[in-house]
């Protein structure tokens, strides 16, 4: 259906010749924009309904009661379903600690939430098939569990700002919505969110289209192909100062893979851009001392580089 639409627009209406740089770039764009937006709308709607049953104010209570290792696993999985805007990172962190969730378990949540989210997963599934989506999810969750576990074992509570432990939260009074109300909420939210993220997705796909159309096929192979053993750490280093949501990264990764970047290197780039970012570190500085932020970023970088090598080796 989307292919038919793109054929119609690019080759029939605009009468462009296949094989030229501009045509290829435009085709990529016209084919992917409607396809991704439709997938996104469906994904956001379904997940918003599921998510309405697991607000962080509730999940922190389960996590506070679980044994630590089970807690890491649950926190990483819940992180997939709970995106937070970066201005909520600090209150979420304090809320978890206040509810008695161990520091390491809280980090498992903080790592998995920006790195693995349902929107990115469904985009990966739509564009690369379920295997790549599953690999990305499994490795993201593993990094979150292991990374959080290491931070927990290091006992770094002394590098959390003292005031965090002094805050007391009240028990919120909630009204439990009916299923009908959840459906209506989800529909409204889908429209609001789509309106918000569409410009970013369109720009990301446009960048993907330009790479697809203009960057020569052997360019990436020459610099970051399997022959370059330093490609993985290199893309992670490039990814740290950059920030884009995991979802916004998918079209870019698509174009890079298309040009021959190995899968592990591409996934490492996507993880580094979405999970380690300067803006988030600056926000977290309000609750964490600089040493802990360093440990956090360091563990994440090492774990992501390892994952990149692993998938380059086995795929």
């Amino acid at each position, binding site marked *: 259906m989307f292919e038919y639409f793109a054929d119609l627009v690019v080759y029939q209406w605009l009468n462009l010749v296949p094989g030229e740089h501009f045509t290829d770039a435009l085709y990529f764009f016209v084919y992917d924009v409607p396809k991704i937006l439709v997938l996104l709308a469906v994904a956001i709607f379904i997940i918003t309904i599921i998510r309405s049953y697991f607000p962080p104010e509730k999940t922190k209570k389960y996590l506070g009661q679980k044994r630590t290792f089970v807690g890491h696993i649950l926190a990483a999985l819940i992180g997939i379903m709970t995106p937070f805007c970066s201005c*909520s990172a600090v209150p979420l962190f304090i809320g978890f600690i206040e509810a008695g969730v161990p520091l390491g378990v809280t980090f498992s949540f903080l790592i998995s939430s920006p790195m693995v989210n349902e929107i990115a997963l469904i985009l990966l599934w739509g564009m690369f098939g379920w295997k790549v989506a599953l690999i990305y999810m499994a490795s993201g969750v593993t990094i979150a569990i292991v990374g959080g576990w290491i931070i927990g074992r290091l006992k770094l509570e002394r590098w959390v700002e003292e005031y965090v432990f002094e805050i007391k939260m009240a028990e919120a009074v909630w009204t439990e919505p009916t299923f009908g109300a959840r459906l209506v909420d989800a529909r409204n939210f889908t429209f609001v969110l789509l309106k918000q993220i569409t410009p970013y997705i369109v720009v990301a796909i446009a960048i993907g289209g330009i790479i697809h159309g203009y960057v020569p096929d052997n360019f990436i192979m020459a610099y970051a192909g399997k022959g370059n053993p330093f490609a993985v750490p290199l893309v992670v280093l490039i990814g740290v100062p950059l920030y884009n949501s995991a979802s916004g990264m998918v079209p870019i990764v698509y174009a890079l893979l298309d040009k021959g970047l190995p899968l592990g290197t591409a996934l490492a780039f996507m993880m580094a851009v979405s999970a380690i970012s300067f803006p988030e570190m600056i926000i977290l500085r309000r609750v964490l001392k600089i040493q802990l932020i360093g440990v956090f970023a360091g563990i994440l970088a090492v774990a992501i580089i390892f994952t990149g090598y692993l998938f380059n080796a086995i795929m």
Partner: protein
Amino acid sequence: MKIEVLGMGCCSCAKLYDAVQEVVTELGVRAEVIKVDDMKAVLQKGVMSTPAIVVDGVVKVAGRSPNKEEIKKYLR
């Protein structure tokens, strides 16, 4: 009625405060609309993700910006 709009200075929170005030005016309800932007105060309400709306002590929405139709429902 006491309506508290919880947010910590992100732009969607400021917009939500304006939207709530507009809805209050439209519906003509007697309500006090308060902006809560101090993080500790937000946490003390038991809310961790903003923007959020609390009406007479009950959390109506947290972690996202509702549209005006939804806000109207919260005030009924």
